[in-house]
C-alpha cells in the first residue's frame, strides 16, 4: 500500500474526527453530544485500520475491536449519566446546566440559558406512545 492511499484514508479518519469534535462542541442535545463522541471514536478507528493496512499486520484491526468494545461500555455509562441528568431537569438541553458562573457576566448563549431553567411544559406530552404489546407488566408503570 502506498503513501497516497494511506494519506487519503487518514484524511477520511480526520474528517470523521473533526465532525465529531464540531458536533460535540456545538450540539445542544445531550444524546447528540454523546453521539458525536462516538463519531470521534469511529474516526480514530479508521485511522488505526489504515495504519494496520499500511504496515501489513493485523494490529490496527485488533486495536479497533478493542476500541469498539470500550465504546460500547462507555456508551452505556454515558447513557445512564444522561438519564440521571434528564431526571433532574426533565429536559435534554445542555444549556440548562450552565449556571455555574459569575453573576455579573453577560449571558453568552443565544437565547438565555437562565430562562431555559424553567422547564417547559411536560416534555412527554408530544412524544408518541407505543401501543402496549405482550403481557402487561407485573408492576404498574411509573408515573414520571
Amino acid at each position: 500500500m502506498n503513501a497516497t492511499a494511506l494519506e487519503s484514508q487518514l484524511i477520511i479518519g480526520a474528517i470523521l474526527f473533526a465532525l465529531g469534535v464540531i458536533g460535540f462542541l456545538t450540539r445542544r442535545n445531550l444524546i447528540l453530544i454523546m453521539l458525536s463522541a462516538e463519531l470521534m471514536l469511529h474516526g480514530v478507528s479508521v485511522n488505526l485500520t489504515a495504519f494496520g493496512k499500511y504496515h501489513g499486520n493485523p494490529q490496527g484491526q485488533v486495536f479497533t475491536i478493542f476500541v469498539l468494545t470500550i465504546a460500547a461500555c462507555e456508551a452505556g455509562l454515558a447513557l445512564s449519566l444522561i438519564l440521571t441528568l434528564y431526571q433532574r431537569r426533565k429536559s435534554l438541553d445542555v444549556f440548562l446546566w450552565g449556571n455555574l458562573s459569575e453573576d455579573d457576566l453577560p449571558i453568552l448563549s443565544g437565547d438565555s440559558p437562565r430562562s431555559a431553567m424553567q422547564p417547559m411544559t411536560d416534555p412527554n406530552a408530544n412524544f408518541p406512545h407505543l401501543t402496549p404489546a405482550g403481557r402487561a407488566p407485573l408492576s404498574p408503570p411509573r408515573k414520571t
Partner: protein
Amino acid sequence: MFDWLKPNDVLWLIPVAPLLACLWIVLVGQIVRRQQAHRPVILAFAVSFAAAVYLLTSVVPGGFGTAGEHGEHARASSAIMTTIYQWIHVGGLDVAVTLRADAMSALMLVMVTSVSLLVAIFASGYMKGDPGYPRFFASIALFVFSMCMLVLAGNFLLMFVFWEAVGLCSYLLIGFWFQKPSAAAAAKKAFVVNRIGDFGFLLGVFLIWTTFGTLDFEQLFGSPTLIQAAFLQDPTVLTTICLLLFVGAIGKSAQFPLHVWLPDAMEGPTPVSALIHAATMVTAGVYLVARCTPFFVYAPTAQMFVAGIGAATALIAAITALTQYDLKRVLAYSTVSQLGYMFMSLGAAGAGLDLATHAVTFAMFHMFTHAFFKAVLFLSAGSVMHSMGDVIDMRRFSGLRKVLPITHITFLAGALALAGFPLLSGFWSKDEILAVLFTASQTGEHADFYRIILGVALLTSLMTAFYTFRAYFMTFWGEERFPAEAGDHPHDAPPAMAGPLFILAAAALGVGLIAGPTHLYGHYLEQTPGLPEAHAHAPNVLMMGISTVLALVGIAAAYGLYVRSPGIAQALKRGSGPLHHLSHEGLQLDWLYLRLIVTPLRLIAQLAERFDRCIIDVIVDCVGFVPGLFGAVLRPIHNGFVQNYAVVMLLGLVLGLVSVLRAFAGQM
C-alpha cells in the same frame, strides 16, 4: 541607731513602697473597697517617710554640724549606692538602675515624702465621694514613686526616665476630671510644654555622654578629675551642657518662656496642685541644676543665664499675680515666681567659686521652706473651695474668717511665710537668697549683672507680699458673702483635712527658724559630694532689714487697698487700663504662643491630614484596584457554559499533543 539596718537596705524601700501601693490599687483596688483606696497609699507614704528620715540620719556620718564649725567639715562624704539591675550594657554605654543617695537627695526625699504624706491624708477627705477615687490615689502613688526615683537616680538616663514619668503623672492628675474639656486641654498643654524642655534635657544628656563617655553620677561628680579634663580640652562644651540641662529645668520648673502650663494646671484637684505644682515636681528642675553644680561651676555664662531667666520669670509671674481673681491662679503664679527666686539663687554662683556652695544651699533651702508654705496655702485654698462648693473666684465670696477659722489660721500662716514676715520660714530662706545676691553684686565678676538681679529680687518680694495679702484680704476679710453653690452654711475642714493643714502650717512657721539661723540645713547640705568648699557665712543684716521693710510695706498696701478703702483698687484698675489687662492675661504670652506657634502647627497638621487622605489613601486604593482588574479579565472564563469547558479541554489536549510530538521530532 539601728546597726543591723544599713542604709543600703532601705534605699530601695523609699520608691518601691508607693509603687506597690499603686500596683495594689490598679490590680485590686479598682474593684474591691474602692472608697478605701487611700489606705494603702497613706501607709506606703508613711513607710517612705520613715525610710527617708532614717536615710537622713545615716547618709552623712558627721550628722548635723553645729553652727560653730567652719570649713573643715564640708568634705565630700561618699554617697550610698545600690545597684538594682544592670539595664543597658551596649558598646560604650553602660547604664544600670542605680539608686544613689547623698545629703542633697536625703533632704529632698524628706521634703517630698513628708509633703506627699500630708497631701494624701488631706486628699482622702477632699476627694471623698469622687467616682475616680482609686484612680486618683493610684496616680498619686505612681507620682511619688517617680519623684523618689528621680531624686535617687544614679545616672542621667535613669533620671531622664523618671523626669518623663513625673510629667506623665502630672498629665494624669491635671486631667483627672478629663470629661471637662478645659481640664483635658490643660493636661495636654502641661505635657507638651514639658516635652519641649525634655528635648533640651535629652540633648544635654547626649552631649554629656559624647564628652565624658559616662552618664553615671558617681563617676562624673565623685571626683573632679573628669570634668576638669573636659574643661581643659574644650571650655565651651560645659557651658553648652549646662544650658541644655537648664532648658529641661525651664520646662519642668515652669520658667519663662515655658511657664504657661502651670497656671492652667490648676484645673486639676487642689491636692494635686499642692503636691505636684508647689512642692515636688516643679522642684525637680531646681534639683537637677543643684545636682549638676560641678558642671555649672565651670560655666559662669550658663549661671548668669540661669539667674537672668529666674529673674525674668519671677518678675513676670509677680506682675501677673497682681490682678488675678482666681485664688488658685494667684498661688500658681506665686509658685512660678518663687521658683524664679530659686533659680536666681542658683545662678548667683556665677559670681565666684567661693559663692557656689552657698548659692546652691540657699536655693535648696528656699525650695524646702517653699514646699511647706506653698503646700499649706494650696491646701487652705482647697479647703475654701471645698466649703464654697467648688467656687474659687475671689470676687464671689469674702469675709470667710469667722466661718472658716481653721482655714483662716493656716492660710494666714502660709501667707505670712510667703510674704517673708520676719522670723518665719520664708523670711529666713528669702533673706539668705537676697544675701547671696548682694554678695554677688558686690564682689566677683559680672557685679553689675547681679545688681540688676538683686533689684528684680527686691521688687518681686515687694510684689509678692502685696499680692499674697491682696488674696488673703479679699478672701477672708470684708463683709460675709457666700456664693450660691455653698449652700446655707459653709462648713470648715473635716478632721482629715484639718490635720495636715495644721501640721503644714506649723512647718511653714517653724522650719525656717529651726534650720536657718542655726545653719543646720546648710551644714548638712554642704556635705554633698561634688560641692566646692564652703566658707563661713555671716547673716546679712542689711538685706534682712530691707526684706522686712518690703514685706511690711506690701502687707500694709494690700490692707489699705483691700480692707480700708476698696474704692481705690477699682479706681486704679480703671485708671491703668491696658496695663491691667496686660497683667491679667499674663503679659499676653498665651495669646502670643497661640498666634505664633499653636495656630501654624495646627495648620500644618490639617495640611498633613489632607495630604494623607487625598493623596496617600488614593494611591493605596489604586494599588488595591489592580487585582480587581486582573480578576475582571480572568473571570469570564467561568461562564457556566458547559461546551466552553469542553473547548478548553480540547485546547489543552491539542497543546499536550503538540508538545509531545515536538519532543519526539526533536529526539529523532
